[in-house]
């Protein structure tokens, strides 16, 4: 009985995941794409829970859904109409090649999985209840993977600084125009191409 429930939840979550993924990639309105991504992240969190990764599921929702997506939505709001995203365009060769590459990748992975399905992927290990708990993760972070922990924090610091730099230095130049662009700037951009 519990098994059936798990399978059902799994199918629902997986379906939502893939569906929202396709939505993200194919919708024209970026706002809708962002919302679809939020759905994607949520269903992924469910899948993580099924894989005994509770802390990660929580982190996914909080960090990705709560912070990253909010950032996305802010920017989309700032951009307004300019954020409208046309579909592909460009050379058809490029497009077919892209599709081919993605399919090839998928096929390869499926093949590998198929080859390993019988033996390597048979029985998952027995895990305790504390597998994936915050305590376990925290312990690992502060002992075995301390270096990764510290470096990640540095990366985040650098990203924050970079964000500020990208934001502020253009401020003085942006003050001149009225936001509709400076003909000078535009021409120089086009000249450069």
């Amino acid at each position: 009985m519990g098994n059936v429930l798990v399978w059902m939840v799994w199918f629902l979550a997986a379906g939502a995941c893939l569906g929202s993924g396709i939505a993200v990639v194919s919708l024209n309105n970026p706002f809708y794409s962002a919302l679809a991504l939020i759905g994607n992240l949520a269903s992924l969190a469910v899948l993580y829970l099924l894989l005994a990764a509770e802390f990660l599921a929580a982190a996914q929702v909080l960090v990705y859904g709560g912070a990253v997506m909010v950032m996305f939505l802010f920017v989309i709001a700032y951009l307004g109409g300019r954020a409208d995203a046309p579909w592909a365009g460009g050379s058809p060769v490029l497009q077919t090649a892209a599709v081919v590459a993605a399919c090839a990748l998928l096929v390869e992975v499926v093949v590998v999985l198929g080859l390993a399905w019988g033996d390597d992927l048979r029985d998952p290990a027995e895990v305790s209840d504390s597998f994936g708990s915050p305590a376990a993760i925290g312990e690992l972070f502060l002992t075995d993977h301390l270096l990764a922990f510290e470096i990640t924090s540095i990366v985040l610091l650098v990203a924050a600084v970079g964000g500020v730099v990208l934001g502020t230095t253009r401020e003085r130049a942006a003050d001149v125009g009225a936001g509709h662009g400076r003909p000078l700037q535009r021409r120089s951009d086009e000249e450069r191409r």
Partner: protein
Amino acid sequence: MSGPGVGWYLIVAAMLFGIGSLGVMLRRSPLIVLLSLEIMLNGGNLALIAFARQLGNLDGQIFALTVMAVAAAEVAIGLGLIVAMARRDMTLDVDQASVLRG
């Protein structure tokens, strides 16, 4: 473990990765490209966590957590770039931004 085996999760992860790569290669708006990147990263995360469960080793989850942090940082920078592009009234089209200079 009840429910689907690890292999199923891996298939989902692979499909997510494929969808994300299609988005990166086929869409012209940098915003959508970033979003697709996120999907690819999430696919990778799912695979990591699935293997962590399979092998009973938490290292996979640690890795996935780190990936999450780095993805967040990367998104921040990417959005900063898009905002900078918008501020200079450049068309938000990756095909146009082909000069690749400062």
